[in-house]
């Protein structure tokens, strides 16, 4: 190993770190005669000083790029040193880190060299070396290169656990403005193709286990938030469509941080992290709590409330549905109570079979009473003192000392660990 490997690793890690998705969950691969397994609940191996979970060796194959996207450090017109790792070097690093239990696997992204197809082929080669030569059964996430040949897209999915292609910007217009070399179609086409292939593969594997898996951990994408003027409503509605129509596993949101200056970009967006955090909460509500985008945001409220989590915000707009009697409410109703999470809703249902629950029992069951008390009754008793009126409640809920806002945005929490966060 040469010293210069260290320098290239640093440059290529630095170039990949803004790509947020670190999740390694959702795939389970058992180890048959080789090294590695993919744990279905995802494992964090460490956390960076900005509080993000590290579970994958996340690097660029190269930071050289023929494109010129305005928001990207690797854009062609940016004057920076360009380096690359060969597929063999990538495999060796991954295995070395993996055997020491530093990581769950590899997240390989890249700039575009020569052409989309050429780049895609190199990515595939790295994955193939890992799987075939190194007999690696750990997690591999491959980026698809916009515009890559459908045949290559298909191959990528056969070696990788998850593939992703970033939408980057919520609308066609924004994409045209900031990433003039990439068309929306070049991004959406592979996405559709993958979605179709996953569906077909699932059906085929039901018929015969011998059919090789295709991207068993599904596909994800990323949106940059705050670089262009879209409202939260536009973003959350787009996510809802991606989940419903293309069956995406995750949509990641990345608050825009200016790393390059460009007249097309806002200099300093307002409270981008807070916004990103609220979007993740809303996304969570879509995926696990049965909310629809139009319930959270509409023409009158096109953006998420910065001071309240989206579920509390929704509840305050629908006081007619509250307070809810916890001894009678159904599972879906319980889930909609601010302060009640998936886990605590399940536990309430179990526990109340053994007798009526009182307000004091709720805390033991994991309910966040700071919020929930204003929205529930237990045996007819209401625990939130004071009048039941939207403005009053709002003030109290905002005054309630908030837990430090958790910005561990990229941590894929296994469903089993969800507590009363929302």
């Amino acid at each position, binding site marked *: *190993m040469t*010293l210069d*490997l*260290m320098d290239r*690793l*640093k440059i290529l*890690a*630095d170039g990949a*770190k*803004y790509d947020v998705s670190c999740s390694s969950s959702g795939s389970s691969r*058992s*180890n048959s*005669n*080789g*090294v*590695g*397994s993919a*744990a279905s*609940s995802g*494992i*964090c*191996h*460490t*956390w*960076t*000083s*900005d*509080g*993000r*979970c*590290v*579970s994958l*060796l*996340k690097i660029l194959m190269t930071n050289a790029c023929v494109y010129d996207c305005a928001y990207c450090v690797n854009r062609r017109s940016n004057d920076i040193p360009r380096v690359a790792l060969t597929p063999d070097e990538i495999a060796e*690093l991954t295995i*070395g*880190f993996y*055997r*020491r*239990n*530093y990581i769950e696997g590899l997240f390989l992204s890249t700039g575009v060299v020569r052409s989309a197809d050429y780049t895609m082929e190199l990515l595939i080669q790295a994955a193939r070396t890992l799987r075939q030569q190194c007999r690696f059964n*750990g997690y591999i996430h491959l980026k698809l290169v916009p515009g890559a040949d459908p045949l290559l897209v298909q191959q990528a999915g056969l070696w990788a656990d998850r593939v992703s292609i970033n939408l980057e910007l919520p609308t066609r217009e924004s994409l045209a403005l900031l990433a003039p070399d990439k068309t929306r179609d070049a991004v959406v086409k592979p996405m559709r193709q993958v979605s179709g292939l996953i569906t077909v593969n699932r059906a085929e594997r039901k018929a015969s286990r011998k059919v090789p898996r295709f991207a068993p951990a599904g596909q994800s994408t990323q949106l940059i938030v705050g670089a262009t003027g879209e409202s939260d409503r536009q973003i959350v509605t787009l996510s809802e469509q991606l989940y419903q129509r293309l069956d995406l596993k995750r949509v990641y949101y990345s608050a825009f*941080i200016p790393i390059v200056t460009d007249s097309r970009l806002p200099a300093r967006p307002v409270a981008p*992290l807070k916004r990103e955090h609220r979007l993740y909460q809303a996304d969570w509500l879509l995926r696990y709590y049965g909310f629809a985008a139009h319930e959270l945001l509409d023409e009158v409220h096109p953006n998420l409330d910065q001071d309240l989590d989206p579920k509390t915000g929704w509840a305050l707009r629908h006081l007619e549905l509250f307070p809810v009697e916890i001894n009678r409410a159904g599972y879906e109703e319980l889930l909609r109570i601010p302060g009640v999470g998936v886990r605590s809703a399940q*536990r309430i249902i*179990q*526990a109340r*079979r*053994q007798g009526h*629950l009182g307000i004091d*029992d709720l805390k*033991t*069951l994991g309910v966040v009473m700071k919020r929930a008390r204003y929205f529930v009754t237990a045996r007819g008793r209401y625990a939130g003192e004071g009048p039941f009126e939207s403005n009053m409640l709002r003030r109290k809920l905002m005054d309630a000392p908030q837990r*430090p806002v*958790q*910005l*561990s945005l990229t941590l894929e929490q296994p469903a089993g660990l969800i507590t009363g966060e929302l």
Partner: protein
Amino acid sequence: MAACYQYDGTLDGLLTLYARLLPDRIAPEQISTNLPDQHPLFSSEIIITTDHVVAEAFWQGLTRRLSPHSLKLVRRCLLADYPQQELLLYRYLLLEAEQGRRIDQMLAHPHVAPVWKLSQQVGREAHRYLGFVRFQQVQGELYYAAIRPEHRILLLIGAHFAERFSDQQWLIHDKRHNEGILYNAETKEWLLLPMELHQQPEAAPQEEQFQLLWQHYFSTLAIPERMNLKLQQGKVPLKCRDVLTEFCVLPPADSR
């Protein structure tokens, strides 16, 4: 009359104690371990002598009777390292003896909630260590890792590592509880053993390279604009850091 009971601090000792007390519904005031230097303060202390046959039979009985959920709870609590854990678990088992599987739904019961909480803590720590184990390649083709967990979680994580690193020889050493798991790649078997190490094993030639690569990789990842050390500390408590390669001091830049 409530009395204080003592056992020898082993798992079998505790199971023997439960096996002796439970059938008569005895409610002890305290259950403690009789470490050699601890002399009974009061004559009311009753010492239970470990009987492996009784312990094994009792454990078999539990595995037959308890629901999978409840068994998991009990298993984790047995591996806990927590003051009064013996008594907490005893109260739970007593309630189970009366209520049978109904206990699974009595989540808010004062004898269930603390056991659940403790088992959560143990489970969470075990999950965390799936990520926090750091192997070093040492002389003799062995991958060695030291950990220092609160609870005795080795038995909960062994299977995971045995599956994942099935083709490499490895050893995970719990320095707090002086035990370790040794995995044999030939036979694909692992074993929990009492273990004390007096000397740091010598690293294999490539080892330092990989540690350096990892440390530098890790320090590159943080985004300065988002610095949040408090959040990081919540996730990686300071007390875990001495076994984590990435938190060990980086060598000076000129030696790279």
